[in-house]
Protein backbone atom coordinates (compact mmCIF):
# COMPACT_ATOMS: atom_id res chain seq x y z
CA UNK A 1 0.00 0.00 0.00
CA UNK A 2 2.83 2.35 0.65
CA UNK A 3 3.18 4.76 -2.21
CA UNK A 4 6.66 5.94 -1.34
CA UNK A 5 9.45 5.73 -3.88
CA UNK A 6 7.09 5.62 -6.79
CA UNK A 7 7.56 8.06 -9.62
CA UNK A 8 4.85 10.53 -10.51
CA UNK A 9 3.22 9.89 -13.91
CA UNK A 10 0.62 12.63 -13.86
CA UNK A 11 0.93 15.99 -12.12
CA UNK A 12 -2.03 18.35 -12.15
CA UNK A 13 -1.51 21.87 -10.82
CA UNK A 14 -4.07 24.57 -10.12
CA UNK A 15 -6.35 23.33 -12.87
CA UNK A 16 -9.24 25.66 -13.60
CA UNK A 17 -11.93 24.73 -16.11
CA UNK A 18 -14.81 27.08 -16.63
CA UNK A 19 -18.03 26.62 -18.53
CA UNK A 20 -19.16 29.74 -20.31
CA UNK A 21 -22.94 29.56 -20.41
CA UNK A 22 -25.84 31.91 -20.79
CA UNK A 23 -26.35 31.84 -17.02
CA UNK A 24 -22.83 33.02 -16.45
CA UNK A 25 -19.42 31.51 -15.96
CA UNK A 26 -19.52 28.18 -14.16
CA UNK A 27 -16.33 27.37 -12.32
CA UNK A 28 -16.65 23.63 -12.75
CA UNK A 29 -13.04 22.95 -11.79
CA UNK A 30 -11.64 25.66 -9.58
CA UNK A 31 -8.00 25.13 -8.74
CA UNK A 32 -7.42 21.40 -8.51
CA UNK A 33 -3.97 20.08 -7.72
CA UNK A 34 -2.91 16.46 -7.38
CA UNK A 35 -0.26 13.90 -8.32
CA UNK A 36 -0.72 10.38 -9.58
CA UNK A 37 2.02 7.80 -9.02
CA UNK A 38 2.80 4.79 -11.16
CA UNK A 39 0.60 1.83 -10.26
CA UNK A 40 -1.50 3.89 -7.92
CA UNK A 41 -5.29 4.08 -7.83
CA UNK A 42 -6.58 7.49 -6.92
CA UNK A 43 -10.23 7.93 -6.09
CA UNK A 44 -12.03 11.20 -6.79
CA UNK A 45 -15.21 11.36 -4.75
CA UNK A 46 -18.07 13.82 -4.83
CA UNK A 47 -21.68 14.36 -5.64
CA UNK A 48 -22.77 15.01 -9.19
CA UNK A 49 -21.85 18.55 -10.09
CA UNK A 50 -18.82 18.52 -7.84
CA UNK A 51 -16.55 18.78 -10.86
CA UNK A 52 -15.07 15.30 -10.73
CA UNK A 53 -16.08 14.28 -14.23
CA UNK A 54 -15.18 17.69 -15.58
CA UNK A 55 -11.73 17.30 -14.02
CA UNK A 56 -11.34 14.03 -15.93
CA UNK A 57 -12.49 15.51 -19.21
CA UNK A 58 -10.08 18.43 -18.70
CA UNK A 59 -7.17 16.00 -18.54
CA UNK A 60 -8.20 14.67 -21.96
CA UNK A 61 -9.00 18.15 -23.26
CA UNK A 62 -12.43 16.85 -24.26
CA UNK A 63 -14.70 19.49 -22.84
CA UNK A 64 -18.33 20.08 -23.74
CA UNK A 65 -19.05 23.13 -25.87
CA UNK A 66 -18.61 26.29 -23.86
CA UNK A 67 -16.05 24.61 -21.63
CA UNK A 68 -12.47 25.84 -21.48
CA UNK A 69 -9.51 25.17 -19.24
CA UNK A 70 -8.46 28.68 -18.35
CA UNK A 71 -5.34 28.02 -16.34
CA UNK A 72 -3.24 25.39 -14.66
CA UNK A 73 -1.01 22.59 -15.78
CA UNK A 74 -1.50 18.94 -16.68
CA UNK A 75 1.81 17.14 -16.89
CA UNK A 76 1.90 13.58 -18.21
CA UNK A 77 5.31 11.96 -17.72
CA UNK A 78 7.04 15.30 -18.06
CA UNK A 79 4.99 16.59 -20.97
CA UNK A 80 2.61 19.51 -20.64
CA UNK A 81 -0.75 18.56 -22.17
CA UNK A 82 -2.54 21.89 -22.02
CA UNK A 83 -0.32 23.44 -24.68
CA UNK A 84 -0.51 20.55 -27.11
CA UNK A 85 -2.32 20.84 -30.43
CA UNK A 86 -5.48 18.86 -31.10
CA UNK A 87 -3.69 16.39 -33.36
CA UNK A 88 -0.99 15.84 -30.75
CA UNK A 89 -3.69 15.28 -28.15
CA UNK A 90 -5.35 12.72 -30.41
CA UNK A 91 -2.13 10.74 -30.35
CA UNK A 92 -2.10 10.83 -26.56
CA UNK A 93 -5.71 9.83 -26.08
CA UNK A 94 -6.23 6.12 -26.18
CA UNK A 95 -2.51 5.46 -26.24
CA UNK A 96 -0.94 7.03 -23.19
CA UNK A 97 -4.05 8.10 -21.40
CA UNK A 98 -7.26 6.24 -21.74
CA UNK A 99 -10.71 6.26 -20.24
CA UNK A 100 -13.64 4.04 -19.42
CA UNK A 101 -16.76 6.14 -19.65
CA UNK A 102 -19.53 6.43 -17.12
CA UNK A 103 -21.88 4.14 -18.98
CA UNK A 104 -20.03 1.23 -20.57
CA UNK A 105 -23.38 -0.24 -21.63
CA UNK A 106 -23.95 2.49 -24.17
CA UNK A 107 -20.42 3.51 -25.01
CA UNK A 108 -20.14 0.99 -27.82
CA UNK A 109 -21.37 2.05 -31.23
CA UNK A 110 -24.44 -0.13 -31.92
CA UNK A 111 -23.95 -0.33 -35.67
CA UNK A 112 -20.41 -1.72 -35.72
CA UNK A 113 -19.11 -5.05 -34.48
CA UNK A 114 -17.04 -4.92 -31.33
CA UNK A 115 -14.13 -6.20 -33.38
CA UNK A 116 -14.42 -3.26 -35.78
CA UNK A 117 -14.41 -0.85 -32.86
CA UNK A 118 -11.38 -2.48 -31.26
CA UNK A 119 -9.58 -2.54 -34.59
CA UNK A 120 -10.38 1.11 -35.11
CA UNK A 121 -8.62 1.92 -31.84
CA UNK A 122 -5.66 -0.28 -32.76
CA UNK A 123 -5.36 1.23 -36.23
CA UNK A 124 -5.22 4.72 -34.76
CA UNK A 125 -2.42 3.66 -32.46
CA UNK A 126 -0.47 1.85 -35.13
CA UNK A 127 -1.64 1.20 -38.68
CA UNK A 128 -1.35 -2.45 -39.68
CA UNK A 129 -2.96 -4.87 -42.15
CA UNK A 130 -6.53 -5.95 -41.36
CA UNK A 131 -5.58 -9.52 -40.54
CA UNK A 132 -2.97 -8.42 -38.05
CA UNK A 133 -5.36 -5.95 -36.41
CA UNK A 134 -8.00 -8.60 -36.16
CA UNK A 135 -5.60 -11.02 -34.51
CA UNK A 136 -4.64 -8.39 -31.97
CA UNK A 137 -8.30 -7.54 -31.34
CA UNK A 138 -8.96 -11.20 -30.55
CA UNK A 139 -5.94 -11.21 -28.22
CA UNK A 140 -7.24 -8.17 -26.37
CA UNK A 141 -10.70 -9.68 -25.98
CA UNK A 142 -9.03 -12.79 -24.57
CA UNK A 143 -6.95 -10.71 -22.18
CA UNK A 144 -10.07 -9.14 -20.67
CA UNK A 145 -11.59 -12.61 -20.29
CA UNK A 146 -14.23 -12.48 -23.00
CA UNK A 147 -15.19 -16.09 -23.61
CA UNK A 148 -14.80 -17.40 -27.16
CA UNK A 149 -13.06 -14.27 -28.49
CA UNK A 150 -12.67 -15.58 -32.08
CA UNK A 151 -16.43 -15.64 -32.44
CA UNK A 152 -17.20 -12.65 -30.25
CA UNK A 153 -15.03 -10.35 -32.31
CA UNK A 154 -17.74 -10.40 -34.98
CA UNK A 155 -20.62 -9.76 -32.58
CA UNK A 156 -22.58 -6.57 -32.37
CA UNK A 157 -22.92 -4.88 -28.98
CA UNK A 158 -26.61 -5.75 -28.67
CA UNK A 159 -25.76 -9.42 -28.91
CA UNK A 160 -23.63 -9.26 -25.77
CA UNK A 161 -24.47 -9.24 -22.10
CA UNK A 162 -23.89 -6.13 -20.03
CA UNK A 163 -20.87 -7.62 -18.33
CA UNK A 164 -19.34 -8.64 -21.62
CA UNK A 165 -19.81 -5.17 -23.09
CA UNK A 166 -18.00 -3.78 -20.08
CA UNK A 167 -15.12 -6.13 -20.76
CA UNK A 168 -14.96 -4.96 -24.36
CA UNK A 169 -14.90 -1.32 -23.25
CA UNK A 170 -12.16 -2.20 -20.80
CA UNK A 171 -10.31 -3.94 -23.64
CA UNK A 172 -10.55 -0.85 -25.83
CA UNK A 173 -9.28 1.28 -22.94
CA UNK A 174 -6.15 -0.81 -22.42
CA UNK A 175 -5.57 -1.62 -26.10
CA UNK A 176 -3.04 1.18 -26.42
CA UNK A 177 -1.21 0.11 -23.26
CA UNK A 178 -1.82 3.45 -21.57
CA UNK A 179 0.07 4.83 -18.59
CA UNK A 180 -3.02 6.36 -17.04
CA UNK A 181 -6.54 5.00 -17.07
CA UNK A 182 -9.45 7.15 -15.96
CA UNK A 183 -12.51 5.19 -14.93
CA UNK A 184 -15.71 7.10 -14.50
CA UNK A 185 -17.87 4.98 -12.30
CA UNK A 186 -21.15 3.76 -13.73
CA UNK A 187 -23.90 5.67 -11.99
CA UNK A 188 -26.83 5.11 -14.26
CA UNK A 189 -26.36 1.41 -14.88
CA UNK A 190 -26.86 0.67 -11.23
CA UNK A 191 -27.37 -3.05 -11.49
CA UNK A 192 -25.43 -4.34 -8.50
CA UNK A 193 -23.99 -7.36 -10.27
CA UNK A 194 -22.84 -5.23 -13.16
CA UNK A 195 -21.18 -2.85 -10.77
CA UNK A 196 -19.28 -5.60 -9.02
CA UNK A 197 -18.28 -7.10 -12.38
CA UNK A 198 -16.92 -3.70 -13.26
CA UNK A 199 -14.81 -3.58 -10.11
CA UNK A 200 -13.47 -7.05 -10.81
CA UNK A 201 -12.55 -6.04 -14.33
CA UNK A 202 -10.68 -2.97 -13.12
CA UNK A 203 -8.81 -5.03 -10.56
CA UNK A 204 -7.84 -7.58 -13.21
CA UNK A 205 -6.65 -4.85 -15.55
CA UNK A 206 -4.67 -3.21 -12.82
CA UNK A 207 -2.95 -6.40 -11.75
CA UNK A 208 -2.09 -7.30 -15.33
CA UNK A 209 -0.66 -3.97 -16.40
CA UNK A 210 0.55 -1.92 -13.43
CA UNK A 211 -1.06 1.18 -14.80
CA UNK A 212 -2.20 4.17 -12.78
CA UNK A 213 -5.92 4.56 -12.35
CA UNK A 214 -8.04 7.57 -11.53
CA UNK A 215 -11.32 6.26 -10.24
CA UNK A 216 -14.27 8.63 -10.18
CA UNK A 217 -17.16 7.78 -7.90
CA UNK A 218 -19.62 9.08 -5.33
CA UNK A 219 -19.51 5.96 -3.24
CA UNK A 220 -17.11 5.88 -0.31
CA UNK A 221 -17.64 2.14 0.01
CA UNK A 222 -16.19 1.55 -3.44
CA UNK A 223 -13.28 3.86 -2.66
CA UNK A 224 -12.43 1.76 0.34
CA UNK A 225 -12.26 -1.40 -1.75
CA UNK A 226 -10.54 0.01 -4.84
CA UNK A 227 -8.26 2.91 -4.09
CA UNK A 228 -4.92 3.69 -2.50
CA UNK A 229 -5.55 7.35 -2.13
CA UNK A 230 -8.65 9.49 -2.21
CA UNK A 231 -9.56 13.07 -3.05
CA UNK A 232 -12.89 14.55 -2.01
CA UNK A 233 -14.31 17.22 -4.30
CA UNK A 234 -17.01 19.73 -3.57
CA UNK A 235 -18.17 22.54 -5.86
CA UNK A 236 -15.10 22.38 -8.06
CA UNK A 237 -12.52 22.24 -5.29
CA UNK A 238 -10.71 19.54 -3.38
CA UNK A 239 -11.87 19.72 0.21
CA UNK A 240 -9.88 16.81 1.57
CA UNK A 241 -7.31 14.33 0.34
CA UNK A 242 -5.15 11.61 1.77
CA UNK A 243 -4.57 7.89 1.89
CA UNK A 244 -7.67 5.76 2.08
CA UNK A 245 -6.71 4.47 5.51
CA UNK A 246 -6.15 7.94 6.87
CA UNK A 247 -9.32 9.40 5.40
CA UNK A 248 -11.42 6.58 6.73
CA UNK A 249 -9.84 6.50 10.17
CA UNK A 250 -9.46 10.18 10.66
CA UNK A 251 -11.69 12.27 8.40
CA UNK A 252 -11.31 16.00 8.91
CA UNK A 253 -13.82 17.71 6.64
CA UNK A 254 -17.51 17.61 7.65
CA UNK A 255 -18.39 16.84 4.02
CA UNK A 256 -16.16 13.77 3.99
CA UNK A 257 -17.84 12.56 7.15
CA UNK A 258 -21.26 13.12 5.68
CA UNK A 259 -20.23 11.20 2.56
CA UNK A 260 -19.08 8.29 4.63
CA UNK A 261 -22.29 8.25 6.60
CA UNK A 262 -24.26 8.06 3.43
CA UNK A 263 -22.60 5.12 1.75
CA UNK A 264 -25.52 3.02 0.62
CA UNK A 265 -28.36 5.53 0.34
CA UNK A 266 -28.11 6.90 -3.12
CA UNK A 267 -31.03 8.10 -5.11
CA UNK A 268 -30.64 6.48 -8.49
CA UNK A 269 -31.80 9.44 -10.49
CA UNK A 270 -30.34 12.47 -8.79
CA UNK A 271 -27.35 10.81 -7.24
CA UNK A 272 -28.19 12.90 -4.23
CA UNK A 273 -26.92 11.87 -0.87
CA UNK A 274 -29.85 11.69 1.43
CA UNK A 275 -27.97 12.00 4.65
CA UNK A 276 -26.74 15.47 3.73
CA UNK A 277 -29.41 18.09 3.79
CA UNK A 278 -29.68 20.33 0.78
CA UNK A 279 -27.85 20.36 -2.51
CA UNK A 280 -24.53 21.82 -3.62
CA UNK A 281 -24.73 25.56 -4.34
CA UNK A 282 -25.32 26.56 -7.95
CA UNK A 283 -21.89 26.82 -9.55
CA UNK A 284 -22.64 30.15 -11.18
CA UNK A 285 -23.57 31.68 -7.85
CA UNK A 286 -21.10 30.37 -5.30
CA UNK A 287 -21.07 31.62 -1.74
CA UNK A 288 -18.09 33.72 -0.79
CA UNK A 289 -16.89 31.57 2.04
CA UNK A 290 -16.71 27.80 2.27
CA UNK A 291 -18.97 26.30 -0.35
CA UNK A 292 -20.20 23.60 1.93
CA UNK A 293 -21.09 26.04 4.72
CA UNK A 294 -24.80 26.38 3.85
CA UNK A 295 -25.24 22.64 4.31
CA UNK A 296 -22.66 22.15 7.01
CA UNK A 297 -23.93 21.06 10.42
CA UNK A 298 -21.00 22.69 12.23
CA UNK A 299 -20.64 25.88 10.20
CA UNK A 300 -19.53 29.03 12.00
CA UNK A 301 -19.90 32.68 11.00
CA UNK A 302 -16.39 32.65 9.66
CA UNK A 303 -17.21 29.83 7.23
CA UNK A 304 -19.72 32.06 5.49
CA UNK A 305 -17.20 34.83 4.96
CA UNK A 306 -13.85 33.33 4.14
CA UNK A 307 -12.74 30.25 2.23
CA UNK A 308 -10.64 28.09 4.54
CA UNK A 309 -7.01 27.42 3.58
CA UNK A 310 -5.83 23.91 2.92
CA UNK A 311 -4.02 22.59 5.94
CA UNK A 312 -1.80 19.58 6.03
CA UNK A 313 -1.59 17.16 8.92
CA UNK A 314 0.56 14.22 8.27
CA UNK A 315 -0.02 11.44 10.68
CA UNK A 316 2.92 9.20 11.49
CA UNK A 317 3.78 6.78 8.68
CA UNK A 318 1.38 8.44 6.28
CA UNK A 319 2.37 10.36 3.18
CA UNK A 320 -0.10 13.13 3.24
CA UNK A 321 -3.44 14.26 4.51
CA UNK A 322 -4.86 17.66 3.69
CA UNK A 323 -8.19 19.32 4.30
CA UNK A 324 -9.73 22.70 3.66
CA UNK A 325 -11.82 23.46 6.72
CA UNK A 326 -11.53 26.01 9.49
CA UNK A 327 -12.16 23.25 11.98
CA UNK A 328 -9.72 20.77 10.46
CA UNK A 329 -7.19 19.44 12.88
CA UNK A 330 -9.14 20.26 15.98
CA UNK A 331 -12.51 19.04 14.76
CA UNK A 332 -14.03 17.02 17.50
CA UNK A 333 -17.73 17.39 17.58
CA UNK A 334 -20.62 15.06 18.38
Amino acid sequence: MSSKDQDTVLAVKELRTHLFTKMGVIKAVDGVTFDLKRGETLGIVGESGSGKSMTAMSLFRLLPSGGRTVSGSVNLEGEELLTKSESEMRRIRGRRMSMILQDPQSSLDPVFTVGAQLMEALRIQEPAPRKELRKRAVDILRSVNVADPERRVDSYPHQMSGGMKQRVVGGIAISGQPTVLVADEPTTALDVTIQSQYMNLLNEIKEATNLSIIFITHDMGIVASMCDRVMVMYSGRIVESGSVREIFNNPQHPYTKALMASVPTIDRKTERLFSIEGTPPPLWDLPEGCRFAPRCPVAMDRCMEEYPPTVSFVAPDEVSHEAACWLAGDIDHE
Partner: protein
Amino acid sequence: MADGDAHTAQIALKIKAPRATSGWVRTLRSLPIVPTSILLFVLVLPAIAPQLLALHDPLEVHVPERLSPPVLFGGTWEYPLGTDQLGRDIYSRLVHGARGSLLVALTTIFIGGSVGVALGFVAGYFGRWLDSFLMRMVDVSLSIPMILLALTFAVALGPSFGTIILVIALSLWAHYARLVRGEVLGLRDRDYVARAKVAGASHLRIIGRHLLPNVINTITILATLQVGQVIMMEAALSFLGIGIPRPQPAWGRMISDGRQLIASEWWISFFPGMAILLVVMSLNLFGDWLRDHLDPKLRQIL
Protein backbone atom coordinates in the same frame (compact mmCIF):
# COMPACT_ATOMS: atom_id res chain seq x y z
CA MET B 1 -28.57 27.45 12.91
CA ALA B 2 -30.44 30.76 12.68
CA ASP B 3 -27.96 31.76 10.01
CA GLY B 4 -28.71 28.61 8.10
CA ASP B 5 -32.42 29.28 8.20
CA ALA B 6 -31.94 32.78 6.87
CA HIS B 7 -29.92 31.35 4.02
CA THR B 8 -32.57 28.79 3.20
CA ALA B 9 -35.20 31.49 3.21
CA GLN B 10 -33.12 33.50 0.81
CA ILE B 11 -32.76 30.59 -1.56
CA ALA B 12 -36.47 29.94 -1.42
CA LEU B 13 -37.11 33.57 -2.31
CA LYS B 14 -34.71 33.42 -5.18
CA ILE B 15 -36.41 30.39 -6.61
CA LYS B 16 -39.89 31.83 -6.20
CA ALA B 17 -39.16 35.25 -7.62
CA PRO B 18 -38.96 34.34 -11.35
CA ARG B 19 -41.99 32.06 -11.10
CA ALA B 20 -44.26 34.92 -10.09
CA THR B 21 -43.87 36.64 -13.45
CA SER B 22 -44.22 33.46 -15.47
CA GLY B 23 -47.47 31.97 -16.71
CA TRP B 24 -49.72 33.65 -19.20
CA VAL B 25 -48.10 37.04 -19.17
CA ARG B 26 -44.74 35.63 -20.06
CA THR B 27 -46.22 33.23 -22.59
CA LEU B 28 -47.98 36.05 -24.39
CA ARG B 29 -44.93 38.23 -24.25
CA SER B 30 -42.91 35.53 -25.99
CA LEU B 31 -45.41 35.29 -28.86
CA PRO B 32 -43.48 35.55 -32.11
CA ILE B 33 -44.55 39.01 -33.26
CA VAL B 34 -43.91 38.88 -37.00
CA PRO B 35 -45.64 35.55 -37.74
CA THR B 36 -48.54 36.43 -35.48
CA SER B 37 -49.17 39.75 -37.16
CA ILE B 38 -48.84 38.22 -40.64
CA LEU B 39 -51.45 35.64 -39.68
CA LEU B 40 -53.69 38.33 -38.34
CA PHE B 41 -53.46 40.66 -41.33
CA VAL B 42 -53.13 38.21 -44.19
CA LEU B 43 -55.38 35.41 -43.02
CA VAL B 44 -57.64 36.09 -40.05
CA LEU B 45 -58.82 39.67 -40.59
CA PRO B 46 -59.51 39.25 -44.33
CA ALA B 47 -61.37 36.03 -43.57
CA ILE B 48 -63.58 37.68 -40.95
CA ALA B 49 -64.26 41.00 -42.64
CA PRO B 50 -63.13 41.00 -46.29
CA GLN B 51 -65.42 43.89 -47.22
CA LEU B 52 -63.52 46.16 -44.85
CA LEU B 53 -60.15 45.51 -46.49
CA ALA B 54 -61.05 44.95 -50.10
CA LEU B 55 -61.05 47.81 -52.59
CA HIS B 56 -63.32 46.19 -55.18
CA ASP B 57 -65.79 43.41 -55.55
CA PRO B 58 -63.53 40.39 -56.17
CA LEU B 59 -65.76 39.23 -59.01
CA GLU B 60 -66.25 42.58 -60.65
CA VAL B 61 -64.90 42.62 -64.20
CA HIS B 62 -63.18 45.77 -65.50
CA VAL B 63 -62.37 44.93 -69.08
CA PRO B 64 -60.64 48.24 -69.94
CA GLU B 65 -58.27 47.81 -67.01
CA ARG B 66 -57.44 44.18 -67.67
CA LEU B 67 -53.86 43.04 -67.07
CA SER B 68 -52.87 46.30 -65.46
CA PRO B 69 -49.58 45.97 -63.52
CA PRO B 70 -49.04 46.49 -59.77
CA VAL B 71 -48.63 50.05 -58.53
CA LEU B 72 -44.83 49.89 -58.26
CA PHE B 73 -44.56 48.54 -61.79
CA GLY B 74 -46.46 51.20 -63.66
CA GLY B 75 -49.92 50.60 -62.30
CA THR B 76 -52.22 52.76 -60.23
CA TRP B 77 -53.36 52.72 -56.60
CA GLU B 78 -56.75 51.76 -57.91
CA TYR B 79 -55.39 48.22 -58.34
CA PRO B 80 -52.37 48.05 -56.02
CA LEU B 81 -51.41 44.48 -57.00
CA GLY B 82 -52.64 44.73 -60.58
CA THR B 83 -55.55 43.05 -62.34
CA ASP B 84 -56.03 39.70 -64.08
CA GLN B 85 -57.20 38.82 -67.60
CA LEU B 86 -60.74 39.94 -66.77
CA GLY B 87 -59.65 43.12 -65.05
CA ARG B 88 -60.47 41.81 -61.59
CA ASP B 89 -58.50 43.38 -58.75
CA ILE B 90 -55.84 40.93 -57.54
CA TYR B 91 -55.59 42.52 -54.10
CA SER B 92 -59.34 42.29 -53.48
CA ARG B 93 -59.40 38.71 -54.72
CA LEU B 94 -56.58 37.83 -52.33
CA VAL B 95 -58.50 39.39 -49.45
CA HIS B 96 -61.64 37.47 -50.34
CA GLY B 97 -59.68 34.27 -50.92
CA ALA B 98 -58.56 34.11 -47.31
CA ARG B 99 -61.99 33.11 -46.05
CA GLY B 100 -62.20 30.01 -48.22
CA SER B 101 -58.74 28.84 -47.16
CA LEU B 102 -59.36 29.38 -43.47
CA LEU B 103 -62.84 27.90 -43.62
CA VAL B 104 -61.63 24.73 -45.33
CA ALA B 105 -58.75 24.43 -42.88
CA LEU B 106 -60.87 24.89 -39.77
CA THR B 107 -63.70 22.64 -40.93
CA THR B 108 -61.52 19.78 -42.10
CA ILE B 109 -59.34 19.89 -39.01
CA PHE B 110 -62.41 19.99 -36.80
CA ILE B 111 -64.06 17.05 -38.55
CA GLY B 112 -60.90 15.00 -39.17
CA GLY B 113 -59.62 15.86 -35.69
CA SER B 114 -62.83 14.90 -33.88
CA VAL B 115 -63.14 11.60 -35.68
CA GLY B 116 -59.44 10.84 -35.28
CA VAL B 117 -59.37 11.72 -31.59
CA ALA B 118 -62.47 9.64 -30.91
CA LEU B 119 -61.08 6.63 -32.76
CA GLY B 120 -57.70 7.12 -31.09
CA PHE B 121 -59.36 6.92 -27.68
CA VAL B 122 -61.32 3.86 -28.67
CA ALA B 123 -58.19 2.14 -29.97
CA GLY B 124 -55.95 3.10 -27.08
CA TYR B 125 -58.48 2.64 -24.31
CA PHE B 126 -60.28 -0.52 -25.30
CA GLY B 127 -57.36 -2.10 -27.10
CA ARG B 128 -57.40 -5.65 -28.43
CA TRP B 129 -58.96 -6.36 -31.83
CA LEU B 130 -60.51 -2.90 -32.07
CA ASP B 131 -57.07 -1.44 -31.64
CA SER B 132 -55.47 -3.66 -34.27
CA PHE B 133 -58.30 -3.01 -36.69
CA LEU B 134 -58.23 0.76 -36.26
CA MET B 135 -54.47 0.97 -36.48
CA ARG B 136 -54.62 -1.08 -39.69
CA MET B 137 -57.08 1.47 -41.02
CA VAL B 138 -54.71 4.25 -39.99
CA ASP B 139 -51.90 2.63 -42.00
CA VAL B 140 -54.19 2.22 -44.98
CA SER B 141 -55.34 5.80 -44.78
CA LEU B 142 -51.79 7.08 -44.58
CA SER B 143 -50.74 5.10 -47.62
CA ILE B 144 -53.49 6.42 -49.89
CA PRO B 145 -52.18 9.35 -51.91
CA MET B 146 -54.37 12.31 -50.96
CA ILE B 147 -54.33 14.04 -54.32
CA LEU B 148 -55.37 10.91 -56.18
CA LEU B 149 -58.15 10.37 -53.68
CA ALA B 150 -59.26 13.94 -54.27
CA LEU B 151 -59.17 13.45 -58.03
CA THR B 152 -61.21 10.28 -57.70
CA PHE B 153 -63.78 12.06 -55.55
CA ALA B 154 -63.84 15.02 -57.88
CA VAL B 155 -64.69 12.78 -60.78
CA ALA B 156 -67.25 10.85 -58.79
CA LEU B 157 -68.95 13.67 -56.91
CA GLY B 158 -67.99 16.74 -58.88
CA PRO B 159 -65.89 19.54 -57.38
CA SER B 160 -67.57 21.32 -54.49
CA PHE B 161 -66.85 22.62 -51.01
CA GLY B 162 -68.25 19.39 -49.61
CA THR B 163 -65.93 17.25 -51.73
CA ILE B 164 -62.68 18.93 -50.69
CA ILE B 165 -63.73 18.96 -47.05
CA LEU B 166 -64.51 15.26 -47.24
CA VAL B 167 -61.24 14.43 -48.99
CA ILE B 168 -59.01 16.48 -46.73
CA ALA B 169 -60.77 15.31 -43.56
CA LEU B 170 -60.30 11.73 -44.78
CA SER B 171 -56.56 12.29 -45.07
CA LEU B 172 -56.27 14.00 -41.66
CA TRP B 173 -58.05 11.78 -39.15
CA ALA B 174 -55.36 9.07 -39.14
CA HIS B 175 -52.72 11.43 -37.73
CA TYR B 176 -54.92 12.28 -34.74
CA ALA B 177 -55.95 8.69 -34.18
CA ARG B 178 -52.36 7.49 -34.11
CA LEU B 179 -51.14 10.28 -31.84
CA VAL B 180 -54.00 10.02 -29.34
CA ARG B 181 -53.81 6.24 -29.26
CA GLY B 182 -50.12 6.41 -28.38
CA GLU B 183 -50.71 8.92 -25.60
CA VAL B 184 -53.66 6.99 -24.20
CA LEU B 185 -51.66 3.75 -24.18
CA GLY B 186 -49.11 5.53 -22.02
CA LEU B 187 -51.72 6.94 -19.66
CA ARG B 188 -54.05 3.96 -19.43
CA ASP B 189 -52.03 2.13 -16.85
CA ARG B 190 -51.28 5.10 -14.62
CA ASP B 191 -52.29 4.86 -10.97
CA TYR B 192 -55.00 7.48 -11.05
CA VAL B 193 -56.74 5.80 -13.95
CA ALA B 194 -56.66 2.48 -12.12
CA ARG B 195 -57.98 4.20 -9.01
CA ALA B 196 -60.85 5.76 -10.95
CA LYS B 197 -61.66 2.35 -12.38
CA VAL B 198 -61.69 0.77 -8.94
CA ALA B 199 -63.91 3.60 -7.71
CA GLY B 200 -66.41 2.53 -10.34
CA ALA B 201 -66.08 5.41 -12.75
CA SER B 202 -67.62 4.82 -16.16
CA HIS B 203 -65.46 4.52 -19.25
CA LEU B 204 -66.78 7.81 -20.54
CA ARG B 205 -65.96 9.53 -17.28
CA ILE B 206 -62.45 8.13 -17.20
CA ILE B 207 -61.84 9.24 -20.77
CA GLY B 208 -63.41 12.65 -20.24
CA ARG B 209 -62.04 13.46 -16.82
CA HIS B 210 -58.73 11.69 -16.66
CA LEU B 211 -57.45 11.04 -20.16
CA LEU B 212 -58.70 13.91 -22.32
CA PRO B 213 -57.15 16.70 -20.22
CA ASN B 214 -53.82 14.94 -20.58
CA VAL B 215 -53.86 14.76 -24.34
CA ILE B 216 -55.58 18.05 -25.11
CA ASN B 217 -52.26 19.92 -25.42
CA THR B 218 -50.92 17.41 -27.88
CA ILE B 219 -54.09 17.60 -29.96
CA THR B 220 -53.97 21.42 -29.96
CA ILE B 221 -50.38 21.43 -31.17
CA LEU B 222 -51.04 18.94 -33.94
CA ALA B 223 -54.11 20.89 -35.05
CA THR B 224 -52.15 24.15 -35.16
CA LEU B 225 -49.32 22.59 -37.13
CA GLN B 226 -51.86 21.17 -39.58
CA VAL B 227 -53.60 24.45 -40.42
CA GLY B 228 -50.69 25.37 -42.69
CA GLN B 229 -50.58 21.95 -44.28
CA VAL B 230 -54.30 22.00 -45.00
CA ILE B 231 -54.13 25.48 -46.52
CA MET B 232 -51.40 24.13 -48.78
CA MET B 233 -53.45 21.03 -49.68
CA GLU B 234 -56.49 23.12 -50.50
CA ALA B 235 -54.37 25.46 -52.62
CA ALA B 236 -52.95 22.49 -54.53
CA LEU B 237 -56.43 21.10 -55.15
CA SER B 238 -57.72 24.50 -56.23
CA PHE B 239 -54.70 24.81 -58.49
CA LEU B 240 -55.66 21.53 -60.15
CA GLY B 241 -59.20 22.81 -60.57
CA ILE B 242 -60.80 20.44 -58.09
CA GLY B 243 -60.76 22.67 -55.01
CA ILE B 244 -62.94 25.58 -54.07
CA PRO B 245 -65.38 25.91 -56.97
CA ARG B 246 -65.65 28.98 -59.19
CA PRO B 247 -66.36 31.85 -59.04
CA GLN B 248 -65.36 32.08 -55.35
CA PRO B 249 -61.75 33.42 -55.40
CA ALA B 250 -59.18 30.92 -54.13
CA TRP B 251 -55.43 31.46 -53.89
CA GLY B 252 -54.52 28.19 -55.57
CA ARG B 253 -56.91 28.82 -58.44
CA MET B 254 -55.54 32.35 -58.91
CA ILE B 255 -52.05 30.91 -59.36
CA SER B 256 -53.27 28.53 -62.02
CA ASP B 257 -55.24 31.32 -63.74
CA GLY B 258 -52.08 33.37 -64.26
CA ARG B 259 -49.85 30.43 -65.11
CA GLN B 260 -49.81 30.93 -68.87
CA LEU B 261 -49.05 34.63 -68.47
CA ILE B 262 -46.17 34.28 -66.04
CA ALA B 263 -43.61 35.56 -68.53
CA SER B 264 -45.39 38.85 -69.11
CA GLU B 265 -48.09 39.43 -66.47
CA TRP B 266 -46.29 37.73 -63.61
CA TRP B 267 -48.28 39.44 -60.86
CA ILE B 268 -51.40 37.34 -61.43
CA SER B 269 -49.69 34.18 -60.15
CA PHE B 270 -47.00 35.74 -58.04
CA PHE B 271 -49.01 37.46 -55.30
CA PRO B 272 -51.35 34.59 -54.41
CA GLY B 273 -48.27 32.36 -54.06
CA MET B 274 -46.65 34.90 -51.78
CA ALA B 275 -49.81 34.99 -49.69
CA ILE B 276 -49.73 31.21 -49.29
CA LEU B 277 -46.02 31.25 -48.52
CA LEU B 278 -46.36 33.95 -45.86
CA VAL B 279 -49.36 32.37 -44.22
CA VAL B 280 -48.01 28.81 -44.18
CA MET B 281 -44.59 29.94 -42.98
CA SER B 282 -46.15 31.99 -40.19
CA LEU B 283 -48.33 29.07 -39.20
CA ASN B 284 -45.29 26.81 -39.05
CA LEU B 285 -43.41 29.27 -36.87
CA PHE B 286 -46.45 29.78 -34.69
CA GLY B 287 -46.98 26.03 -34.37
CA ASP B 288 -43.34 25.52 -33.38
CA TRP B 289 -43.69 28.21 -30.76
CA LEU B 290 -46.86 26.66 -29.39
CA ARG B 291 -45.26 23.23 -29.25
CA ASP B 292 -42.23 24.52 -27.42
CA HIS B 293 -44.47 26.25 -24.91
CA LEU B 294 -47.07 23.61 -24.30
CA ASP B 295 -45.11 20.45 -24.66
CA PRO B 296 -41.42 20.53 -25.55
CA LYS B 297 -41.14 16.74 -25.49
CA LEU B 298 -43.24 16.59 -28.64
CA ARG B 299 -40.32 18.02 -30.61
CA GLN B 300 -39.39 14.49 -31.61
CA ILE B 301 -42.83 13.39 -32.71
CA LEU B 302 -44.31 16.36 -34.53
